[in-house]
């Protein structure tokens, strides 16, 4: 540790820390453009100049290591003058078009120019102009505004692992871009907008839409993948204007995946905004009372085992519990939340959770990925693995299709036979055995197949065999795909005693099927005589099959709890109200239950949440993960044998993976540009 005095305040910082970090520890704010705590240090903007005792000139604090006994001054005439000089140079070529700039109001350059800029310019010569670059459908560039901090270059190369941006040419002619025009291939490209300190990289869908001070900001959780990214929903009136990530060190740090960020225009399209009832074979608009009456009439008198319910991928825990309770009232145990048919055994939490935790990746020293395209299933989590890899000494083995993970991996094989070999202790199993904290990541897609139970059991046994299951370290991890999947599993929304699973409910084996946002399977599998109730927010393929449609709320439109792949329960808040007559889903179920005399035992969200906390322990403490470590090594049961089919990518198209994204024009454009073709392997 080094003792440093900053403006008379003594702080202790680790050796090797920078002066800027010492200043922050002392509570001094240092202006900066190029420095970003999650990127490598560039030291090229020179805005963070401070004075250090006995240094002959101001030093760039972001790139200057501390020394014991150092005295730093952050607010002297020398420092202020130096920063003013830097600001004047930065503004020489900056267009000062703040009134028409989308960054206006949340621009680092604008803010710091208030502190260090002059009220007029002494520069009378021609300003330089840079041609705008095309970097894809999500990011708009106005490169004349660029101050060449190279944050985007470093983000693309270091965090996203897609080194496609660079600074070409030199001096006055230096430009940031891809040199050869191309759309950036990263699933994290939206973060470039956040890290750009000026208005050079802005959001294309958000261009000229709104000013930050007009927006109401609501904390929420991204449900479009299973990472549980903390987000902020910015809304104006009845519309979501944009979605930004919030900082949550344990989950997403400060990054966010593109699908969650840019597909919100899907919240305005293809929405179910009123109840519909099928009359004479055609869906007709109806009132809530008529819709409820139609359902009640059908369900009345049906035996419980002829009624079933399926929960979708984006559902909140509250409505899942309400539906489960309603089904119990009808005496039905036909519940399922595994639309993909994944052979998940929900009887024990650590059989389906990401037990090491996302932050646990930082501690892992060997990693086996089974049947998961982590980059496209959970881009933020993949960035965490990449971050761990870039710190060195992480060996990654992959069983599954060969894709670009953005870090080097050893492809061990493509099918289950490789798992058998690993279980026998061959090859990569040695690496895992030698590791202190080995991790196994099992993709949900790898068990959504006929031999899924065997794959699950084998993956667990591999984890056990290589010593990944220890009292202080749980190295078995399942990676889910969407934000509603784990919550439903935690609540046990799976077939009860004698209940039918999804497959058994198909083909007319039941008479009535309640779909809670369940759009993830082909509705043609449902028997022609089955009465289908679709409760959800988007008129996707399942709604078209429904006999009664109950319009529900999307994740931005309700106070709801979601559980991420780790088993971390997090609350999202209502940002805007559901459109038209749509209502929060648990209230729909509660209202229906009262009408049929099976009143659910909760009248308020608080009561329902109390019931949630009883139903599953993860809801009792929010934003926490179950204690790490494995004491019971019993493997999940399997009564099938491993097959031989190779593992395939679970989500064929990243940009169209869920029902909100499928309604989004932005995502449709992305899908047409990026297509299904895998991006070129990053040469690194």
């Amino acid at each position, binding site marked *: 540790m080094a003792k440093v005095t900053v403006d008379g305040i003594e702080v202790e910082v680790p050796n090797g820390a920078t002066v800027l970090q010492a200043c922050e520890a002392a509570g001094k704010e240092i202006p900066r453009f190029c420095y970003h705590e999650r990127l490598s240090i560039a030291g090229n903007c020179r805005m963070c100049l401070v004075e250090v005792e006995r240094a002959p000139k101001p030093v760039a604090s972001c790139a200057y290591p501390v020394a014991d006994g150092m005295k730093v001054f952050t607010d002297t005439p020398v420092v202020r003058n130096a920063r003013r000089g830097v600001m004047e140079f930065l503004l020489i070529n900056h267009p000062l078009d703040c009134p028409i700039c989308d960054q206006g109001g949340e621009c680092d350059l604008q803010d710091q120019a208030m502190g260090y800029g002059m009220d007029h310019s002494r520069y009378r010569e021609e300003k330089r102009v840079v041609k705008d670059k095309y970097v894809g459908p999500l990011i708009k560039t106005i490169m004349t505004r660029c101050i060449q901090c190279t944050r985007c270059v470093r983000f693309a190369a270091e965090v996203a692992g897609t080194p*496609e941006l*660079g*600074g*070409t040419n030199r001096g006055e002619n230096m430009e940031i871009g891809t*040199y050869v025009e191309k759309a950036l291939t990263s699933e994290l490209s939206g973060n470039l907008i956040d890290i750009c300190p000026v208005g050079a990289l802005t959001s294309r869908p958000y261009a000229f839409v709104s000013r930050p001070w007009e927006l109401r900001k609501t904390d929420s959780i991204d449900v479009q993948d299973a990472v549980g990214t903390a987000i902020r929903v910015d809304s104006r009136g009845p519309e979501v204007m944009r979605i930004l990530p919030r900082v949550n060190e344990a989950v997403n740090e400060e990054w966010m995946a593109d699908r969650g960020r840019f597909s919100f225009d899907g919240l305005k399209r293809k929405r179910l905004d009123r109840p519909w009832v099928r009359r004479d074979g055609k869906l007709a608009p109806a009132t809530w009372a008529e819709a409820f009456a139609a359902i009640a009439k059908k369900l009345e008198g049906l035996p419980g085992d002829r009624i079933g319910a399926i929960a979708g991928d984006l559902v909140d825990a509250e409505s899942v519990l309400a539906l489960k309770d309603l089904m119990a009232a009808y005496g039905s145990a036909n519940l399922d939340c595994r639309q993909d048919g994944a052979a998940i055994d929900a009887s024990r939490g650590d059989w389906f959770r990401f037990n090491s935790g996302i932050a646990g990746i930082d501690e892992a020293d060997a990693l086996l990925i089974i049947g998961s395209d982590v980059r496209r299933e959970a881009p933020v989590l993949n960035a965490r693995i990449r971050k761990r890899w870039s710190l060195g000494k992480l060996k990654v083995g992959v069983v599954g299709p060969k894709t670009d993970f953005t870090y080097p991996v050893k492809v061990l094989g493509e099918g289950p036979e490789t798992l058998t070999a690993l279980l026998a202790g061959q090859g990569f199993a040695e690496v895992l055995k030698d590791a202190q904290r080995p991790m196994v990541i099992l993709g949900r897609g790898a068990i959504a197949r006929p031999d899924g139970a065997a794959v699950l059991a084998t993956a667990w046994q591999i984890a056990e065999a290589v010593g990944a299951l220890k009292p202080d370290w749980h190295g078995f991890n399942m990676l889910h795909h969407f934000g509603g999947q784990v919550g439903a599993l935690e609540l046990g929304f799976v077939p009860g005693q004698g209940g039918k699973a999804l497959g058994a409910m198909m083909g007319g084996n039941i008479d009535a099927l309640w779909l809670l946002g369940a759009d993830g399977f082909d509705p043609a599998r449902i028997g022609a005589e089955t009465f289908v109730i679709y409760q959800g927010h988007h008129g996707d393929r399942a709604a078209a099959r429904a006999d009664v449609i109950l319009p529900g709320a999307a994740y931005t439109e309700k106070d709801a709890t979601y559980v991420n792949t780790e088993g971390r329960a997090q609350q999202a808040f209502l940002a805007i109200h559901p459109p038209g007559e749509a209502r929060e889903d648990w209230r729909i179920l509660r209202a229906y239950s009262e009408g049929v005399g099976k009143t659910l035992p909760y009248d308020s969200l608080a009561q329902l949440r109390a019931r949630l906390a009883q139903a599953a322990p993860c809801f009792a403490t929010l934003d926490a993960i179950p204690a790490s470590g494995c004491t019971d090594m019993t493997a999940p049961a399997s009564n099938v044998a491993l097959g031989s089919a190779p593992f395939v990518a679970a989500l064929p198209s990243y940009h169209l993976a869920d029902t909100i994204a499928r309604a989004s024009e932005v995502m449709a454009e992305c899908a047409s540009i990026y297509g299904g073709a895998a991006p070129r392997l990053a*040469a*690194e």
Partner: protein
Amino acid sequence: MSHPEPDHFAFDADSNAQIEKIVARYPEGKQASAVIPLLYIAQKQMGRATGSAWVPRVAMDAVAERLSMPPIRVYEVATFYFMFNTKPIGRFHLQVCGTTPCWLRGSDDVLRACKDAGHLKGYGDTSQDGLFTLSEVECLGACVNAPILAVDDDFYEDLDYDRTVALIEALRRGERPQPGSTIGRQTSAPEGGPLVLHDVPAAGE
């Protein structure tokens, strides 16, 4: 890009032999350090093959692939150094040094001679016959024999207007005059031969 780009580039046997030697100089995993020499080899090969020593984009990609580095890192280097021509140039690259010592010693005359004899409009221009491209360069580090004209990699020193014209005419005829001083100066010794140390006895005298 305003100029035609070839759609294919592959290192030939000559280049490959050189590349192998150069890449071997760097420790395993640090091969990307060889990017500058490899770009130079690519540019030379283009000169041999097409008569125009430049680095097309496909050649940069070939360098990136050979060194297992992202192509953008190669583009950055190739566009940073003006020694790499990212556009096609003439058969002979006339590089006039305009830095102070050369300028004091008459680089303006050299420039004028290049324009007149090479039929060039000015810096950045390539002559109609595709023989000459004129560039201004910064100090070439041979100020003692200023002014200097670098033709490709060869320095021609102690130039004036007439000798520059003669040089360019010779190049046009396909000759390659001996590089170095054009007035017969011995390396960087004074004009007309050494002025001091005449009487140093030879060893053994």
